[in-house]
């Protein structure tokens, strides 16, 4: 018969047993985790909120058989004059010029000389676009050394770390498949050259007078986002609001060139935009890479920053472990919300409850189910307000900072259930009131605050603050 244990002995025994069980469980957990990670391809983007779920297909449905590479110059960026006619086009161009002149002269808040000056200033410093990057960095071969070798997982990690340090927000990777994801690369580069972008079985890609050639071996796409300032976007559609995108583009294209050089420095090649908005459909790549979900804006919404990002992509022959698409409830939330469409001054955004396979015009690319926008209406308003507007971004409930814990509670709730979506939409309208065609805040108040965040963003977000 076992001897009776004292209370002290009993507690000690229980403690030891508990520690043993915990150690066994943690050991088993690590083993299972290691095995799962090794088998799981594509992988999850690391450092996410717990409510971001990895899925095999993006929440935006894609009919790959009827999805064809798009000609970028068919967007309103390249064919606006054709879509609205020469006479209308001239009328809108004049309207923009006159409005900007008059508003600056009349000191309209957000359009004053200081606003116009800052907007212009932050657009400077962007490097020239080059299909294969600046190609100035020495390669390992130039230094008499072998190129970098690592597993796709290790390569993905170092690219992610490098990009975060350069100033990117989130990073994901897509493996190119000729039947699917390769179709997200444009058929032709933007106007005026409109050169075809093609794949060839060559060792190194090239650009000549007639075409841009990506080698078949460049099978991986790096997709990353750059954080935009939620702070200044709230002043849209004024010039002060629109410098948000201006500054982000400057940072984005600088980082883009740096990434080209980083890949070159590792001993590999990369192929990207040869002009503004070149290469491919960036939000689609970001969606496939799990950086966010498509939305009623017909733009990307990320779990960390909402729509307050710009995104960009490039192909490389450096093997990279791809990342999985995600869901965090945005597509369902957009069905109930509609604030962007309601506040859009031009009525360009879809008010339909469900996304559609039907495009609104040749500026949209068919083959996916989306909230297609009337891009000509949008551009007409850009000319009217004299900027790139941004109201739809600023009023989005996801366009918020990350200080208040409520943001994470609300996002986690939306990701977990649709039951409270209507209630949360109503609460958002009360807490963050917006008025049609007006900035959410007084632009003059921004100029009085000398204690602003650097570049209007919190660079700790998306990583160590999660």
């Amino acid at each position, binding site marked *: 018969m076992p001897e009776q244990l004292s209370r002290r002995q009993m507690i000690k025994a229980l403690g030891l047993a508990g520690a043993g069980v915990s150690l066994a469980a943690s050991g088993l957990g690590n083993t299972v985790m290691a095995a799962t990670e090794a088998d799981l391809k594509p992988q999850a983007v690391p450092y996410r909120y717990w409510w971001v779920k990895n899925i095999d297909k993006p929440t935006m449905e894609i009919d790959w058989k009827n999805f064809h590479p798009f000609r970028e110059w068919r967007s309103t960026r390249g064919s606006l004059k054709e879509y609205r006619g020469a006479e209308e086009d001239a009328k809108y161009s004049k309207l923009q010029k006159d409005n900007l002149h008059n508003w600056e002269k009349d000191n309209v808040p957000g359009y004053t000389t200081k606003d116009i000056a800052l907007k212009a200033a932050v657009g400077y410093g962007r490097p020239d676009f080059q299909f294969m990057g600046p190609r100035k960095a020495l390669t390992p071969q130039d230094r008499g050394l072998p190129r970098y070798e690592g597993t796709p997982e290790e390569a993905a990690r170092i690219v992610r770390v490098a990009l975060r340090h350069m100033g990117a927000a989130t990073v994901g990777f897509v493996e190119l498949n000729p039947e699917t994801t390769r179709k997200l690369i444009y058929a032709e580069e933007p106007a005026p050259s409109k050169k075809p972008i093609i794949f060839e079985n060559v060792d190194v890609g090239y650009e000549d007078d007639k075409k841009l050639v990506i080698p078949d071996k460049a099978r991986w796409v790096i997709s990353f986002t750059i954080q935009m300032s939620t702070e200044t976007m709230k002043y849209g559609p004024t010039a002060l609001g629109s410098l948000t995108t201006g500054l982000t583009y400057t940072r984005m294209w600088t980082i883009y060139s740096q990434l080209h050089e980083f890949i070159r420095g590792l001993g590999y090649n990369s192929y990207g935009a040869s002009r503004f908005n070149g290469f491919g459909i960036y939000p689609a790549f970001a969606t496939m890479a799990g950086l966010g979900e498509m939305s009623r804006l017909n733009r990307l919404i990320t779990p960390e920053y909402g729509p307050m990002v710009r995104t960009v992509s490039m192909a490389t022959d450096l093997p990279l472990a791809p990342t999985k698409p995600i869901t965090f409830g945005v597509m369902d939330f957009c069905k109930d919300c509609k604030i962007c469409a309601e506040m859009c001054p031009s009525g360009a955004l879809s008010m339909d409850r469900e996304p559609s396979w039907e495009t609104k015009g040749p500026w949209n690319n068919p083959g996916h189910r989306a909230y297609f926008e009337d891009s000509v209406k949008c551009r007409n308003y850009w000319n009217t307000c004299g900027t790139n507007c941004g109201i739809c971004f600023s009023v989005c409930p996801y366009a918020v900072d990350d200080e*208040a*814990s*409520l943001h994470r509670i609300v996002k986690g709730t939306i990701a977990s259930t649709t039951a409270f979506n209507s209630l949360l939409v109503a*609460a958002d309208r*009360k807490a*963050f*009131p917006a008025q049609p065609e007006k900035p959410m805040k007084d632009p003059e108040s921004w100029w009085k605050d000398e204690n602003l965040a650097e570049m209007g963003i919190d660079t700790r977000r998306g990583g160590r603050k999660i």
Partner: protein
Amino acid sequence: MMIWLILGIFIGCGLYWLYTKIKAGSIAVTWYQWLLGFGSTVLFLLTIQNIFAFQVEMEPVAAKFTMLAMGLPAVILGVLAYSSPKLLASFKTKPGEKATISQ
């Protein structure tokens, strides 16, 4: 961060006071008072965090909304936690009879 230190000290002092009173037998706390009190404290802390955070985010309207949507329920729950035994006792008494709290 200082605000959390101060709040932590206050809550710690409050809990210690409650503990000594319960131990001395001068206060009895029912299970639903614990529940209401816990809910009130959580909501109160969330309200404080969000009000300060919305100021940092330069969103004063959201801060006011939080005060109303979370701060008010926190106060209501706190009042209920404090006065629920009296309220329940008054429901149980007959008209004309004086309410007493059983401990």
